[in-house]
């Protein structure tokens, strides 16, 4: 599992300058690594420098079980906190800052979710939205990207 995570992080960091076009609001990146019983999903957020809070729904394969959220927010900057909660095969995530601090421009790791599944389906991202602490309102143009490291 640790090896998978290293591969995931490395892939994202290496790919970032090439693959991540500057979005209007930001992009939630989800990358799945591992096959079979033990799988890991890494979550990163590419910020435009104005986003203070964001949310999304991550849908894992239908047979996902033993979903481990203990590291779901592990990589957030100290300025931010959030909530992760799972129901069935869905994981809801909300990230925010009590001080309305903006997430600095660029790629920011959020954390990882591990689970067990016999399926090798990629997870799905939905309900992605974000807000600016500067304006107190929603940020448009949010994007999402799902990658399967095993396919690279």
């Amino acid at each position, binding site marked *: 599992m640790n090896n998978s995570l290293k591969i995931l992080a490395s892939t994202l960091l290496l790919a970032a300058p090439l693959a991540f076009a500057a979005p209007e609001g930001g992009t939630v990146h989800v990358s799945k690594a591992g096959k079979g019983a033990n799988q890991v999903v890494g979550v990163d957020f590419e910020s435009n420098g104005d986003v203070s809070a964001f*949310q999304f729904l991550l849908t894992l394969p239908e047979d996902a079980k033993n979903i481990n959220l203990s590291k779901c927010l592990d990589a957030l900057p100290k300025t931010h906190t959030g909530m992760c909660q799972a129901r069935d095969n869905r994981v*809801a995530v909300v*990230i925010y800052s009590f001080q*309305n601090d903006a997430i600095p421009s660029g790629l920011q790791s959020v954390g990882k979710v591990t689970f067990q599944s016999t399926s090798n389906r990629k997870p799905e991202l939905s309900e992605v939205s974000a807000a600016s602490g500067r304006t107190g309102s*929603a940020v448009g143009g949010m994007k999402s990207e799902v990658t399967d490291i095993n396919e690279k």
Partner: protein
Amino acid sequence: MNVNRKVFSALALGLAGVLGLSGNASACTFDKWGVGGGNPALPGTVVTGGADKLVAGSPKPESVTRYQNKCGALSKQLGNFVQDSNPGNEQTYHVVFYVYTGLSAGGATVFRALNGGGTAAIQVDYDSNNSKFVIKALGSTDVTGVQKNKWYMVRLDWAKNATMGIQVQGAGSSTKLSTNNLSVTTGATDTIETAQLGWINGGAGFVASGTGAPGIVTDAFNSQRQNQAPRLKRGDADNTNKCDSADITRMAQEIIGSLLNQPNFSPGQPDCDEDGQVNSNDITCIAGVIIGDLLSNNPKTICGD
């Protein structure tokens, strides 16, 4: 304080029948109470004000909690209430309002709708000693589990000679204290002629035993003739009629503004936990609401109907 009610002139009656129109009042005023004839508004010593500590008509600055936008209406003692005598011969009456249970002891009558004879066709009493609302028409029912110093929505759907629909929800809970259609029947020939809101006295049967701390606060009154009055979405700080991360940043703006003494009030309902204060607990609360909605099969059930 936001007040949203029908205009009861003959012309408006016709329009309301077709379009379901209702009037709007600007925040922080009592303008819509008593407008259009009948008895004048009776603001008495009710004060309206928001957390910006600017209170209209009050001799000194003070803070009044609110549910929506900038201002709530504080009734500090018995007899402080507003009245609208414009309703005329209403045979159906749908009303929602928000009440802050600011009594340290005793009770208060917080809402009455009077018939043509001046008798209460609907009455809502808050009993702080027994943690309940007592809701009366011809009969009476208790809504229990009501906490002190919390905001509650009271929504009533009244029609003459029928069972009245009653919904009470608040204190940051995502479930209602009561379900629809408790067994309170209404008068066979009653019509609604007058509405009163605050800490009411006069007539028969009002509750006079309360000790205000700070008192009864009301907000977001809305009455309609034809359709159920909509419930406000708890935690929808930016007033977009949905709960999402933008509400978090809007709340944080208000909290930071308050800490810096630079008021920056949210236009919607930032008091997610409905405790009368807007602080970091509300951010945590709305994050939980968003999570609940994301995981819900019906995304509207947690944020509000």
